[in-house]
């Protein structure tokens, strides 16, 4: 330790414990706002660490604390668990702790002691925390901590992380002189002696149990020692089973000696479960909850999102007024600020969604949702836990994909991530509204069914069923050796802890703004460049013309011209802008791809919109407005009228026929035109492979379905 030289002593600790043991609450109580989240090197598993300082005998000790993913045992079953085990058993790991804090759920001591025993057997300094001791006491369970400490040979502290009682005692225990366990938990030498000796000879310095874990690891990696281990009669699963039985025997004795009888499950949880997992009532309540969630994300988030957009628009206007004219200012206002606004505008939706998810997770309800939905979802290769991401995808795929982290199986998580963007998100709504108004008559059939509303609903259903179908296909295609489990604890209901909910929201928003923001910003700048530059004289002329009209407008405004005169100028400027866009790189690209999109019924003008709305679907409406010179992006009504009048140059028929309209609607329903989604999938899967596959498969699907719609309808 470098502490000897430094004036401040340092100590590195790790928190380990079962899921639902209150580990994160304890972590938050210890570190407060001094925490950071990143990924473990090479894998997208949350790595939370934080710092705090404790005075110990007049000396200040700086403690670095890492919160490991929840695990039931040191034998990993999932990626999350593998990371936790790696940190604790590999002495070379940069996070290898000086001291391990084992967090046990006092109301479920028996299962917690299983992991505790394994950690003790590693022979490294550790402390056992009996968390939720208040809850245990209330339900009539008394644990003799002092006696347990004696029996285990390590310090045992009873505390409540939620009530923040006993935290100071824990801090003192953390900085006390390091002591290895007085004795080991179990005598594993009798279970598998030969292999341990073999490994210890090869890797000197390992304790008994570390050596056994090393043996398991080497065995799975087909290390040269494997043959020797085989010869010694070593079988990993048999050894694990034997160890497990051995441990359960010891745990039974400790429990009998240190606790009274195990009290029954709280009656409140039992009653609530009768309602929440009821045959019919359970689904009704779940649907109601979804409805509330969906409504708030859809409508409540609308207000702050408008403020953000208007704020950024004002900022852009102010900047272009104040800064000297030129490409640098243009880049800043139209490229960077526009990109930033595209990132920040999602913050209210992300915050709201994660507010709900954190509440549902913290209260224990999420486990019930998975429980009642698992059978339905499994048919499509999804998991009970895929429900929330899919539903959230109707608001926005970005937070929805971030919420797939609760799915522990790799395959089910990947499939959920891949199909979630097919759910019709709120960004599609402006596109849907514009096109539906264009092609579907404003009529009512059968007295109640509004045709336009029916079409909108059909599009949402289309997305939903396509997501299920895609999941089903992927389930057949993706091969994995990992088994899907549904072995899951049903925790007791608890009031959500507000500070935990707030930490979760803060964390998700921060991660999105920083990680996804980078990609979105870069692409926005590229798209800005494509739409504002072109080659040759024609583009330069178009730009000069637009600038000239802009100057005229400024002059006319200063001279207090009549509204009529101004209006004529505005229209001229819109026409010039439309001409400039036609001559820009984006316009040229639109013409270039015209042959490809012609079979779908699109012309090059729609081509430009397809390209610009790669960044975000809602850009479609704005681009249409620019192309057709409608000037004001907010004003959808005139664009619709202009688009309705638009005739095909070759055939003289309306461009936006029913066939083209449906073709476009379906294209926007299926294609992955959302940089934010691509950025988030890249981050969550830690590779470009998955967003790549997703982009291609959704693109092919969109093209094929649009083509089919166009051919069938024209």
């Amino acid at each position, binding site marked *: 330790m470098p502490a000897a030289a430094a004036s401040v002593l340092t100590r590195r600790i790790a928190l380990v414990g079962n899921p639902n043991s209150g580990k994160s609450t304890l972590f938050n109580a210890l570190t407060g706002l001094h925490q950071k989240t990143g990924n473990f090197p090479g894998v997208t598993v949350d790595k939370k660490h934080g710092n705090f300082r404790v005075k110990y005998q007049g000396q200040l000790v700086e403690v670095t604390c890492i919160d490991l993913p929840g695990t039931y045992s040191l034998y990993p079953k999932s990626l999350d668990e593998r990371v936790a085990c790696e940190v604790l058993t590999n002495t070379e790991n940069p996070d290898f702790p000086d001291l391990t804090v084992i967090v046990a759920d006092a109301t*479920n001591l*028996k299962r917690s002691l299983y992991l505790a025993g394994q950690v003790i057997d590693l022979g490294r300094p550790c402390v056992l925390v009996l968390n939720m001791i208040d809850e245990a006491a209330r339900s009539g369970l008394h644990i003799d901590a002092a006696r347990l400490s004696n029996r285990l040979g390590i310090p045992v502290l009873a505390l409540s992380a939620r009530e923040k009682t006993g935290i100071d005692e824990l801090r003192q225990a953390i900085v006390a002189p390091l002591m290895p366990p007085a004795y080991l938990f179990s005598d594993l030498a009798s279970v598998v002696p030969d292999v341990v000796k073999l490994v210890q000879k090869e890797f000197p310095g390992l304790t008994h149990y570390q050596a056994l874990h090393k043996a398991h690891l080497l065995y799975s990696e087909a290390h040269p020692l494997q043959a020797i281990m085989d010869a010694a009669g070593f079988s990993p699963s048999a050894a694990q*089973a034997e160890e*497990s039985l051995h441990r359960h025997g010891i745990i039974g004795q400790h429990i009998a000696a240190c606790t009274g009888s195990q009290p029954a*499950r709280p009656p409140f949880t039992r009653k609530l479960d009768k309602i929440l997992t009821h045959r019919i009532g359970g689904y009704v309540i779940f649907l109601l909850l979804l409805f509330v969630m969906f409504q708030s994300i859809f409508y409540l988030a609308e207000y702050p999102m408008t403020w953000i957009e208007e704020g950024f628009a004002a900022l852009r206007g102010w900047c272009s007024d104040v800064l000297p004219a030129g490409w640098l200012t243009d880049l800043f206002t139209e490229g960077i600020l526009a990109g930033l606004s595209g990132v920040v505008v999602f913050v209210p939706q992300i915050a709201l969604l994660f507010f709900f998810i954190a509440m549902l997770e913290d209260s224990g309800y999420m486990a019930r949702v998975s429980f*009642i939905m698992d*059978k339905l979802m499994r048919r499509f290769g999804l998991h009970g836990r895929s429900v929330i991401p899919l539903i959230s995808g109707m608001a926005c795929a970005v937070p929805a994909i971030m919420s797939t982290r609760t799915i522990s199986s790799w395959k089910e998580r990947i499939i959920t991530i891949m199909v979630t963007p097919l759910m019709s998100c709120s960004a599609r709504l402006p596109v849907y509204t514009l096109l539906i108004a264009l092609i579907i008559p404003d009529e009512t059939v059968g007295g109640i069914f509004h045709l336009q509303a029916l079409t909108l609903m059909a599009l949402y259903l289309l997305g939903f069923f396509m997501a299920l179908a895609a999941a089903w296909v992927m389930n057949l295609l993706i091969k994995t050796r990992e088994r899907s489990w549904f072995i899951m604890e*049903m925790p007791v209901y608890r009031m959500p802890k507000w500070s935990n909910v707030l930490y979760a929201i803060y964390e998700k928003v921060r991660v999105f703004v920083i990680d996804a923001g980078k990609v979105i910003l870069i692409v926005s700048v590229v798209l800005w460049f494509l739409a504002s530059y072109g080659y040759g004289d024609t583009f330069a002329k178009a730009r000069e013309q637009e600038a000239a009209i802009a100057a005229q407008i400024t002059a006319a405004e200063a001279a207090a011209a009549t509204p009529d005169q101004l209006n004529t100028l505005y229209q001229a400027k819109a026409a010039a802008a439309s001409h400039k866009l036609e001559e820009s790189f984006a316009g040229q690209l639109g013409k270039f791809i015209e042959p490809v999109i012609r079979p779908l019924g699109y012309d090059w003008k729609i081509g430009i919109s397809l390209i610009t709305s790669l960044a975000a679907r809602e850009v479609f409406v704005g681009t249409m407005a620019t192309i057709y010179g409608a000037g004001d992006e907010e004003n959808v009504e005139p664009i619709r009228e202009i688009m309705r009048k638009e005739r095909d140059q070759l055939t003289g028929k309306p461009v936006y026929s029913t066939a083209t309209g449906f073709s476009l609607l379906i294209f926007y329903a299926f294609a992955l035109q959302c940089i934010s989604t691509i950025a988030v999938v890249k981050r969550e899967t830690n590779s470009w492979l998955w967003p790549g596959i997703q982009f291609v498969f959704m693109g092919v699907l969109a093209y094929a379905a649009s083509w089919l719609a166009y051919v069938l309808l024209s």
Partner: protein
Amino acid sequence: MLAPGERAVIESFTDKALSLKLLEMGCSPGEEVMLEKVAPLGDPIAINISGYVLSLRRSEAATVRIRRINSVA
């Protein structure tokens, strides 16, 4: 298959990989279990074991051999 509220004792496991997972969750031979609840669609199920409730799919539960205890209900 047990009926809700019925009790049994775990005897052994028929699936190696699953048994390791279940052992870690506290399902060891000799432990008493009670069927707490069946999900509305008949799967998964929830069992009460050593003081807490564990949910698992029917296919997973089928790998556990149990001995019914005659409940004096």
